[in-house]
Structures are given as C-alpha cells and as structure tokens.
C-alpha cells in the first residue's frame, strides 16, 4: 500500500517537472523562429524580449485604386495606448518593397491618446501635410491607412481623429474632413467593380514582408 503511494507521488512529480520544462524551456526553444522574424519599424525590437502580435497595416495597391491590408508581426503591448503607438510607428515607417505607403515620408508620430469612449487621437508631424501630393484619392488613402490601422487592430478603438502638430485641422490637403473622429472604412479595401483591373491580385504576399 505504502509502496503504491510512493510510486504515484514520484510519477506525479516527474510529470509536473516535464510539463514545467516544456512550458518554460522547451516551447521557447522549439519556436525560436518567432523571435527571428524581424518586424519592420523600431517598435518591435526583439531584444526587449516582449511577445509578438500580428497587426494589419495598409498600403496602396498596385493600380493605385485601393488600400490593401498587409499583416505584419509587431511587438505586443499590454497597454492599448502603447500598442497603438507600436502600430502607428510601423504604419508611418517606410515599408519594404514592393509595398507603397500612402503616408508622406518623414511623417512622425508626436502623440497618441485613447479616450474612454473608443475615440483615438493621433497627433502627427507637419510632414503629413507638407509632403502630400494632393488629390482626393491619395488623401483618402493617407487618412484611412491610419484610421484603419488603429480601428482594425485595437478592439477598443472605434474612431480616430488626426491632429497635425498638436492642433485640429479641417483637412490635410483640402478634401477629407478631419474635424471629427473617423470610423473604419472598408470600402477603400475592396476591389473596384471593374473588368479592366489587372488580373493579378494587388495585395502583396504576407510572407514577403517578413
């Protein structure tokens, strides 16, 4: 009877040790590739030792007629505001070829606030205006790449208002109303209804970005 008890105790202990090793040593060793996948932008530095998340960022399609979502691995942050900053910095960074960013180069994130009612305020540097080429089409892409990047990746964000150099603006370059928070826009992601679009899908292969 006592011998049986001892055998059970030893078996239980061995199982617990094995589980602990798998959990804390084995799994990280088995999946080292996660850490070596270098995400674009400085936000997801693997040296910080943080875990990763996948976020969808937005770029201009090959034909210039829509936004395409491109999933990228970014550092995971527990705090939604910190996560928003990571996502925005990645969205503002120069993308690798062949992706084309709708945001003028040099645009910097000055601040981001998440309000409790689901509205986010994104304060960008003036390069987003000075470097903008103009046109409704391009301005829609610029604005909604930022709006969609937050609303689609952070559950608590419903709408995004863009500020420039810390102040509210009417528009960036004369078209899209920035006087209020804007909601997610999925229409811009959809392929236009047409026959003469290029046959190949404009959205880049997600693997190419890692």
């Amino acid at each position, binding site marked *: 009877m006592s011998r049986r008890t001892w055998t059970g105790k030893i078996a239980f202990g061995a199982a617990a040790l094995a589980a602990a090793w798998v959990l804390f040593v084995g799994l990280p060793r088995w999946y080292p590739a996660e850490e070596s996948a270098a995400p674009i932008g400085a936000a997801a530095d693997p040296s910080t030792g943080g875990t990763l998340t996948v976020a969808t960022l937005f770029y201009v399609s090959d*034909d*210039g*007629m829509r936004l395409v979502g491109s999933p990228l691995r970014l550092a995971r942050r527990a705090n939604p505001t910190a996560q928003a900053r990571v996502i925005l910095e990645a969205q503002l960074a120069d993308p690798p070829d062949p992706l084309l960013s709708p945001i003028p180069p040099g645009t910097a994130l000055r601040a981001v606030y998440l309000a409790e009612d689901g509205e986010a305020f994104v304060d960008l540097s003036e390069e987003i205006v000075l470097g903008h080429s103009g*046109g409704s*089409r391009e301005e829609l892409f610029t604005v909604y790449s930022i709006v969609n990047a937050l609303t689609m990746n952070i559950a608590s964000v419903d709408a995004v208002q863009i500020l420039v150099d810390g102040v509210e603006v*009417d*528009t960036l370059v*004369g078209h899209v109303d920035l006087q209020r928070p*804007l909601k997610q826009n999925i229409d811009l992601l959809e392929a236009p209804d047409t026959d003469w679009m290029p046959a190949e899908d404009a959205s880049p292969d997600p693997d190419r970005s890692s």
Partner: protein
Amino acid sequence: MTAWSHPLRPVDSGVGRTESPWRDTAPPAPGAAAPAARAGRARWIGWALCILLATAAPGGGQPDPERLTVISRDGRRFLPTVTIGGRTMVAVADLMAPFGLRPGDDRRPGRLTLLRGTAVMVLTANDGIVSAAGRLESLSTPPVERRGIWYVPIDFIGRALPLVSDRPVELRSRSGLVLLGDVRVPQVAARYRRTGPGSRLRLMVTPAFEPRIERAADRLFVTFEADAVDLVLRDFFADDLLRRVLVDDRRARLELELGDAFGSYTATRAPALAGSLDVEIDLTPAAARAAPPAAPDPRPAGGAEEEGAELPTLADLTLPSTIRAIAIDPGHGGTDAGTRGPEGTLEKDVTLGIARRLQAAVQRRLGLRVVLTRSGDTTVSLDERAAIANNNRADLFISLHANASMRETASGAEVFYLSPTEYDQEPGDVRTGGGERIPVVGGGTRILDIVRWERAQLRFVDRSARWAQTVAEELRDRLPMSPRGVQQAPLRVLVGANMPAALVEIGFISNPDQEVQLVSPAFQDAVVEGLLRSIVRFRELVEQGFPADDPFGEDDAPDDPEEIRRPVP
C-alpha cells in the same frame, strides 16, 4: 369630347358633380379654332391617328378627353391632347399655328426641326432633351413619332416654346391653361372651411389682383380685372352656406352659388407674402346675422398653421421643386495650388478653367443662375465655399477637382458625395429644435429654424447620391472613368452645403497622359458637356419629385385626388 367650349364651368370637389346650368355656348367644331387650312388638316390627321391609336396601337394610346386652353390677346383656342403610354401629349401639328412654328428642312428620320423666326428647335424621337435656340431643355418624356405625326409632352409648351417664342409662354399644367403673350391670369388658390356657425372662403390670389365682390340674388361674384382666372380649389365640401364655386373664364370671375342658410358676407383683403393677395370671404348664416365676424381674427387655432402652409415661410425647409441656381466650386486656389502634374500643371488652374467654361455654358444654354465660389486665383476655405453656395441660394452644388495618385497609371474621373456615417451621430435634429425667435424688419419676431452646419448636407444625402450618379453616367459617355465611378467620402466642402452636392475628380493629373488631357480644350468641353447634360437630367428628376423607378413617372398624376383639374370633362 363633350366639353369643347365651356365658358362657365362648375368647379367642385368632384363629389356629386353636376352639369352647369349655364352651358349656353354652342360647342364649336374641333377644327374651328385653327385659322389655317393646313393646321386644320393636320389636326384632322391627328384625330384620325388618335382613333387609330385607340383601336390599333400596341400598348394603346387613348384619346384623352382633356384639352388645353390657350389664352392670348387674340382670344382662346383649344389644343386637343392625347394620352400615349400614360403621358398626356399634344400633336406638334396642333402647335404650329398658335405658336407660329413652321417645319424646317431637316427631314432625317427620327428628327424634327421646327423654325420660329430665326430660332431653330430640334426634336429627336425617343430623346427627352430638346434643343431650342441653342439651349437644351429636358422634357418629362421624349417626343414620339407615330405614323409621321409627332407628339410632344405638354411640358414642351412650358419649357421649349418659351425659348423660341417672341411672346411669353406659360403652361399652367394644373389647370390646363397656356398663357400666350401679355395676358393677365391670376392664380387663385381657394380653401373653404367652417368657422363655427359661419364659414370662410379664403382666396390666395397670385399675383395680387384686387377682386370686386358683388352679390346678385343667390350668388356672389368675385371678379378680377384680368383675362382669365386660374382656380385651384382644394378640399371643397358643399354645405348650406356655399353650394358651388364656378369659374367664368370669359369674365374672369368666380361665381359662388350660395346655400339656403346664407345670410350675409364680409370680405377682407390683405397683402400676403410673395406678392400675393389674401382675400377672406366670411359667410354668415341668416340666423346669426347679429354677430358679424368683424372683430378679431376668428381663425380657428388649429387652422392657422395649416393655412400658413400655403405661404412660403422665411426658413423654408421644404425641398425645392426645381433647379434655378447652381453653385460651381473650382477646387483649391490662391495659396493652395492643389495637386501638381509631372509637367507642372496645377490643379487650381485646371479647376478654374473648367468652372468658367461650365459657368458660361450653364448661363447661356440652360438659363440658370450660376454662383462661383471663386472667380479668380484666390484662397477660399472649404466651409466658406459651402457658405457662398448657401447664401446665394443655390439649388445644386458641384465641386471640381483633379485627382492624384502615387501610382502613375491611375486614371479616370471619380464622383463623390458625402458619406453620412460620420455626421449622423450629431446630437439633435437637423433643426436646432423649436427654432429661434428672431426680430424681423417692421417689428415683431418670427421663429426661424436654424440648420446645424454639420447636418446641413445630411437631409440631402439621397438627392446627392442621385446627383453624383447622374454626373457619373453623363461623364462616362465622354471621359475615361476610374474603376471607382461613384463613391461616398467625408469630404469637408460638401458637409455644410444645404443642397444636393457632389465633388467630381475629373481625372488624375498625376498621370502624364491625363495631365495633357486635362488642359486640352476638347477634353474640358467634354467635361462641360457631360456636366451640362447631368444638370438638365437632375433638374428633371427634381421637378418630377424623384420618381422611384420610372424616370418619367408621377408628373401627371394628381397628388391630391380631390384637387380639381381643369378642364372639366
């Protein structure tokens, strides 16, 4: 066809209609009014065709018992109308003599050219847009050619003929009157209602013609110093004070047939808004003669608002029923150059150039008032542009832009209207709620509805969608279009526009080929022509009250079945 000439016609609500006892004039033959043998012959052909159509035509036209009454200094004549495909039409042959038209030389099939003096009118079968003296006018339905006879909808008389006629031509389709030349025909909108023991007949006379009111036995005569009277009587129910209201066209007077209980009457008149004259005739029963309604306005409390609905109010939130003025907004300008092409073409110059061409074309060919939000190279804010359109009471707003893309190949025109999702969360109704009391000139105050800037466009979004769609359809025939033809977006310049509004990106200036196109006169003319046609088509939609599916529906259907339409069958 029994009521050929009927100078004294009973008018009632259509309930218990009876023949007029004063039908004293012998009806002339249908052709008697036509002075020229040629017109008479054409008319007979027209009638023969009517009968043919009634019996044989597929889809069935039917002779319409109605006809139009043409009133001019020379007297009256009648235009027979026919119903073809559910539309009231008139044979072009019948219009030739009264309006001095003669046929043109162009005998190509499917086209009809008419001349008046040096002016030329071109009709195309199955095309609802007629060219008259160089201007385009839309018709409620296209002209129809049946066995060599051309028919046009009756609104041809009010829309196309004035453009070529040397005399004013006015169609009062509601009453079936055509006013030719300098004739005075006031429109009298009448309402009759009980006011306690008595009753009141209220006449809104437009323009203000002073009536003479006399009693003769069991009648009251309301006579106007005019050539005819155009009466619209709503909601009339006979009672023991007033049995009928009759119109004597030749004497330009109304005859009120009084009831047995009638004792006396008083009449007041007061100038009303919009140059009308408000005439109130109070009828008092014989027993209550002791209390004449001389003292304070006995208007029933509930009736005031209803009656006021006939008058235009200061803050008129009803949607306009036609397009009189159009706001053209050349995008960017001044310090804001907009986008720039690879060869250096500036968006602000392209938009201003097209806006000026469009302005000239709209004024010259459509005769509409044009409001430009900028006429030179000046900086105008987006909200200011909408405010200029609002303050100048434009009925339609078009903002002109040129597009840009980081992809050089992107090309084609795109049309935008406001996406309301960002604005419909605004607290409060479109109006500020309850209105605001504003002092008015001449003393007193008036309650004005204030529309929130952020919500001004919201109530027009449906119309703006139709407007954008119409623009895209007309541009599609003339220009390369982007795969995204019509889209919604929260564009700031559209937000405050208190009218249907759209923004058109004419092409991608970032595309080298399109940059060349955008500055070429031929391309700009194509843009102007497309926008011009879309204005004509949209005006037609507005005037028809936006029929849901039938693009030419609704127009003739009386919205109020009790409304009396003349002529009486």
